C-alpha cells in the first residue's frame, strides 16, 4: 500500500505518495516531475541518478524513500541550477560543451560539484579517482577538463 512521506526537495517541503521501498529516484521523477535525475542501472553503478542529500553525493536509484527523513536536504540538478545558476561547474560544462547524448551529464554535474567541494584543486589523477559515473558516449576526458576548468573558476 502506498504511504505518504514528507520530503524536503530543493529547499521545499512536500508530501509524496509511494509504496515503501520505492527508490527516491522514481519519487523525484514521477511524483515531483524532476526528470533531470536519470535512471541508468538501478543498482547504484552508473551514477545517472546522482543527487545530493545533506550535502553528500547519493545514488538515488538505490535509496528507499522511507529511509529519508523529512528534514534531510535533497538537492537535484534542478535545485542546483535554480540555486546557483552561475555555479562554476555549470559554467565550465557549458564552456567546454561537455555533453554528447547528455543522458549522464546531470548526474556527472551533481557528482562533480560535490567532488570539488571535497577537492577544490584536484589534479588529473584525483579527478580520475574521484569521478565514478559512467558515460557511454565516452566524454570522460571532456568531463575531466571541465572539472579542472570549474576548479579554476571556483578558485578565482
Amino acid at each position: 500500500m502506498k504511504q505518504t512521506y514528507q520530503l524536503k526537495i530543493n529547499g521545499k517541503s512536500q508530501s509524496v505518495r509511494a509504496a515503501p521501498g520505492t527508490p527516491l529516484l522514481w519519487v523525484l521523477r514521477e511524483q515531483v516531475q524532476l526528470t533531470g535525475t536519470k535512471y541508468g542501472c538501478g543498482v547504484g553503478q552508473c551514477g545517472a541518478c546522482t543527487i545530493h542529500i545533506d550535502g553528500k553525493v547519493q545514488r538515488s536509484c538505490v535509496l528507499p524513500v522511507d529511509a529519508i527523513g523529512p528534514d534531510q536536504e535533497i538537492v537535484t540538478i534542478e535545485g542546483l541550477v535554480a540555486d546557483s545558476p552561475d555555479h562554476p561547474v555549470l559554467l565550465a560544462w557549458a564552456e567546454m560543451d561537455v555533453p554528447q547524448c547528455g543522458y549522464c551529464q546531470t548526474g556527472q554535474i551533481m557528482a562533480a560539484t560535490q567532488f570539488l567541494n571535497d577537492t577544490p584543486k584536484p589534479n588529473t589523477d584525483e579527478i580520475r579517482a574521484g569521478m565514478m559515473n559512467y558515460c557511454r558516449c565516452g566524454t570522460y576526458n571532456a568531463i575531466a577538463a571541465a572539472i579542472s576548468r570549474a576548479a579554476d573558476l571556483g578558485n578565482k
Partner: protein
Amino acid sequence: MNIKIQRREFLKGSVGLTGLFLFGCSNQKPVDTEDVIRSELGVYLNIFSDGRVLFETPNAEMGQGTYDALAKILVEELDADWGKVEITLSGANAAMANPKLFGQVTGNSDAVRGYFPVLRNAGAAARSMLIQAAAERWNVPSIECTTENGWVISGSNRASYGDLSEAAGKLSIPENVTLKQASEFKFIGHDFPRKETATKITGEAIFGIDVMLPNMLTAALAMPAEAWGKPKMVDDGGASSVDGVKAVIPVFGGFAVIADDFWTAKTAAEKISVGIEEDDVQRNSSAEIQEHLSAMSGPQYDEHGVLFAGVNGGKDLAVSRVAFRSAISNGKTLKLQQSVPFLAHGALEPLCCTAQFDTNKLTLWAPTQTPKGVHALAVKLSGLPKDSVEVHRTFLGGGFGRKWHTDFIQQSIETAMAMPGRPVKLIWTREQDTQHDFYRPAHASHVEMGFDDNGKITAWKNVIAGKSISKTWSAFYKPEAPDRTLHKVPLYDFKTIHLETRAVDSPVPIGYWRSVSHAHTCFFTEAAIDEAATTWDRDPLEYRLEHLKDERPRRVLKALQELMSKSENDAGTSSGIALMSGYDGFCAVGVQITLADQNLDVNKIWAVADCGLVIDPENAKRQIEGGIFYGLGPALDGKIEFDERKVQSSYFNDSGASSPFAAPLVEIKLLPSDAPPGGIGELGTPAIAPALCNAIAAAGGPRIRDLPISKAGLRVRV
C-alpha cells in the same frame, strides 16, 4: 556552383500560417496524401516574421551532434543569424528521407553525408527567395542584393529575413541556386557551442524516459530469462492483483505490467514467472556457437561460402579459390584463425517509449533511430490510417544502433492499445536492456597470407563466418550477393585478394552495433597485417605503408607516426597501431600500454583522422574519442555469453562498458581534407581493438587472435 533544384512546386502562403515562410526541398518523391501536403508546405525550414529561424531536424540526436551540424549546413547557405536559429526534432515525415538510407532513419554515420546536398540546396534556395522578395520590394535587380547574417542588403536598403519571410514564402522555388565555395564557409568547419548543451546541463532536455503526460500510466516488463524462444506465462505470481496495477497483458517478447508508477509496475512484474515454449533449437550456449563459427570459417564448410571479392575482380567462387591457391603455391604463408564475441549496445538510457491510443488516433513519443519504422509499425498494429498516427521524437540517451530496432516500440503500442485514452510509458530495466538486446554478432575469421621474397603480402584470403545482419534485417538482402555486414574489402594493395563470407543460421537476436562490420573486419585485418609485419621483422607502420597506394590513408598513418614519436621512448611502454577506413574517411589509432606481470595498463591513445570536409571540428574529435571508448571496453573485456540461452551479464561493468576509472587520455588530430564530408560517429570505434592487441604483442605479450583481450589471461582494467 550551380545546383538544379529538383522539386519545383511550392504551395504559396497557406491558411493559418500567415507570417510563416515555409520551404521544402526534398529529393524524396512523396508517397501518400499526408506527405504531399507536408512536403509542399516545406519540411525543414520556417522563418517567422519575428526573425526566428526554425530548423526541423530529420535526424535523431543521440550524442553524435547532428542536431547542430545539419542546422549549420542549411544556415551556411541561408546566411542567417545563428543566434536566431532554433532547432527542433521533427516528427515522422517521409519527405525527410535521408537520400542515402531510403527513409527517415538515423544510422551508418549517414546524417551529414546524406543530408549535406539536400540542406545546402534548401538554404541556398531560401536565401535566393528572400533576396528576390527584397529586390521586388526595393525595385532593384536581385543581382544588386546581397545578404549578411540574416539581412538582405542593397545599397542603403536593409531588410531582415523575418521582415521578408511572408513575401518570400509566396515566391516560386528557384530552379537553380548558387552554392558557396568552401573558402566562403562561415559555419561549416567552424566550432560553435552546441545549441542543446544548455538543456542537457540543466536537466531540461527531454529524453524518451522523461516524457510526462497528464493521466499517464507506466509499464514494466516481465520477460523470459532466455534471450530467444517464444515466451509463455508460467505463473502470474499475483502480479495483476497488486495495489496500483491496472493490467497485465501479453506483449512482444513477454508480458507488460501497467500500473500507476514504474516501481509498482516493476516490482509486480518481478512476481511473474515467464518461461519459453519448448522448441528444437540447437546450440544454446555462446561457447557452442563460437565453436561452430570457427569451424564454419574453415575448409570443411567450403560449400557454405559466398564470394565477397574475387581474385582479379572475378565473380566465380571456385575460380577465385583456385586462383588464390596458385598465387600462394610458391613461398612462405601465414595462416591464422580469429574471433570476436557477441556484444551488447548498453545505451545509458534504457529502452523506453510512450504511446497513447484513442479511438481514431495513435500518438507516440519515441527515442528512436527510425521514425520511418516506428510510423509504419504503429500503422500496422493499430490498423489506423497513416495520417492518424503521429510520432513525436525525443532526444536519445545513447542509441548505438539499438534504437533502430522497434521491439520496444511494439511493446509500447501494445500497452497503449490495452489502455485506450490514457498515455502509457514503457520502461525497460537495465538488466532487461542487457539481456534482451540485438547483439553485435560473434564472428570467426580465417586469414591466409602469401608473401614475396621481401616479405610483402602478395596474396590475401579472409573467410568470415557469422550471422548476417543484412540477412536478418535488410529488405535488400540477396543470399548470393556480397554481404557488407559480414565483410569489407581491405584498403591495402595485396595484389591477389580472395574474400568469402559464410552466413550462419542462428536464433541469437543480432543487430547493428556502432561501426557494424568494421568492428570485426578491422580487427581481423589489422591484427593479421601486424602479425605479418612481426613475422618479417618490420616496423608495423612502415609495413602498412608498403602496402598502401592511396594517398589519404598514407597521410593519416604518417601523421600518426609523427604524433606518437614524441612518446615513443617512454620507459617500460609499448605501442601498437591500427588503421580504419570507412564512412568515406580514414582513422589511424595508436595506443601506448604498459604490460607487466600480466597486468595491462592503457596509458594513452592517439588518433589521426581524415574524414573529409568537417562541419564541427571539435565535435568530430569528440566523436572519434567517444567512438574509441566505445570500442575500448569491449576490446579489453567485453562479451555477452549465453548459457542455456541466458545472458550472463546484467550491467555496464560485466558487459564491457568503458568505465571512468580506466579512461586514458586521448589525443586526436584531424587532417584538413578537400574530400566530401565523411561520417564521424562510428569512425573511431573499430581500430582500438587491433591497436591494443598489436601493442600487447609488441610488449612481448601474447598475440591475441580472439577478443576480448581478457580471454588471454591478462588482467585488464575496464
